């Protein structure tokens, strides 16, 4: 990706979109490169904060090790879950092929 820490090129956006599984058009690449460059410039201000000895906060509520008893509880009925799927077959989600054909 580009070395300038607060700009995003068209190629950067294309790469990030690919990582995010988003098909983007040429027009979108131009639009987002411009808009996200501006946003990134603004949010880069976090780098000016005096954070030398500061620990990160991942979560506002410091909870650890939340457990429940290890017992079987009912799940949603299969047909009800599959009813919301875009495609189902043989009581399963039907998915497009995952592996490419051998060349």
């Amino acid at each position, binding site marked *: *990706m580009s070395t300038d*820490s607060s700009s*995003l090129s068209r190629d*950067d*956006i294309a790469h*990030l*979109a*690919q*990582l*995010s*599984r*988003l*098909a*983007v058009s040429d027009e*979108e690449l131009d*639009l*987002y490169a411009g*808009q*996200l460059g*501006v*946003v*990134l410039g*603004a*949010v*880069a*201000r*976090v*780098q*000016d*904060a*005096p*954070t030398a000895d*500061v*620990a*990160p*906060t*991942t*979560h*506002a*509520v410091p*909870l650890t090790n*939340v457990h*429940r008893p290890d017992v079987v509880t009912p799940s*949603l*009925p299969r047909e*009800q*879950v599959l*009813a*919301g*799927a*875009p*495609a189902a077959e043989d009581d399963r*989600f039907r*998915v*497009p*092929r*995952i*592996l*490419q054909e051998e060349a």
Partner: protein
Amino acid sequence: MSTDLTRLDVTGLRAALADGSTSAVEVTQAHLDAIAARDGALNSYLHVDGETALATAADVDRRRAAGEELGALAGVPVALKDVVVTDGVPTTSGSKILEGWRPPYDATVAERLKAAGTVLLGKTNMDEFAMGSSTENSAYGPTRNPWDHDRIPGGSSGGSSAAVAGFLAPWSIGTDTGGSIRQPAAVTGLVGHKPTYGSVSRYGLIAFSSSLDQAGPMTRTVADAALMHEVIGGYDHRDSTSIDAPAAPYVEAARQGATGDLSGVTVGVVRELGGDGHTDGYEPGVLAAFRAGVEQLRALGAEVREVSCPSFDLALAAYYLIAPSEASSNLSRFDGVRYGLRVGDDGSRDLDEVMAATRAQGFGPEVKRRIILGTYALSAGYYDAYYGQAQKVRTLIGGDFASAFADVDVLVSPTSPIVAFPIGQRVDDPLAMYAADLCTLPASLAGLPAISVPCGLSEGLPVGLQVMAPAMADDRCYRVAAALEAAQDAARGGRFLDQLAARS
């Protein structure tokens, strides 16, 4: 001529239902009629099922007549933001990617409202996946502000705000990640409360930014907000971030506040949120209304002092890294396999291609921008400089709050630096849109409770005053907000929204 049932707040509706002067069916029908007559213009609802609502109401009436024990809110209608999953009722989160999806279960919030006997009127419009401050990012068209149809109703819970301010629901559920309950409440003249993070279950809320998301009440009075919070709040084992501790009684706090005595309460005015040297971006009319509100708190006996929270200046930068980062992860579940849209599955494309095509067609521009930005902030080589650094700023903001609350009981600020802006004004300028959240972001990042309560008008449009409190001290928000509400109602000679009712 009977009272217009859509003008009553929930306290009034419960009294009328209990003494038999009206029925649940009459109340529900009155709201359905209002929706049919006026929601064409407002677009506050995405889904209304009048038949089911009337059947639920009829059941309440039948059980009441039979002398059966009823839930605390039996027969009271409610509207839910469309981010709340509802069993068998279409739920889209404002996105085309979930168009037509009927969830197989209820969110805890929906389940508790159902158990209390409420009647679900419908699901309200919102910015797609709650990303926005205007409801213009909905895939189903913008919602309009009942005070001025050419202006935004706030966001992302803009359908919920417009429905309640427009008298199409007596109250509603919103969700707040960076201000999405408080800002729409402020710009439509409602009370909106973001509970302490973990105080209301997130189970069944379609996740945007999991460390920030929280559901809460949007109502016409502080008392109604406190009542709804008591019904939806409390521990839920299905949300691993749910706080398992008793909460202070909110309704009692609101009642105490409404007596108008704030002696013994210390109020801190946050300099960095509209105070001296920090007025850039704030409208003068908003600041004038806010300062008048602070003077009213002083007149009620509160001790008022200025407080400085220097890290709040970085809240916007930190939020717009943390929220998109979490969103980029959360929204990966929309893969075109288990629910919702699937595009391009014609046998020639593999899973990755179908996924990319589905997400390209199913998501709108703001969602795509945030996914791309979040993916960047989390990627190797950039993580420390962006996401990691934003998390450290989050610590600094929490520290500023802790220092402030060592000296004061609550902090106050304007809820939004601006009144409702015209539809279309900021939609192509993400940074200008994000500025609407300037005052609400610090409490979000720190997980603290914060309420917005009406505080006068600027140029004829509502202004909100925000009251922030320490974690689990939501009762302080309700007490102070109720005191201000009572003082303003007394000075005005009526409820805030009666001004809007008088115009129409």
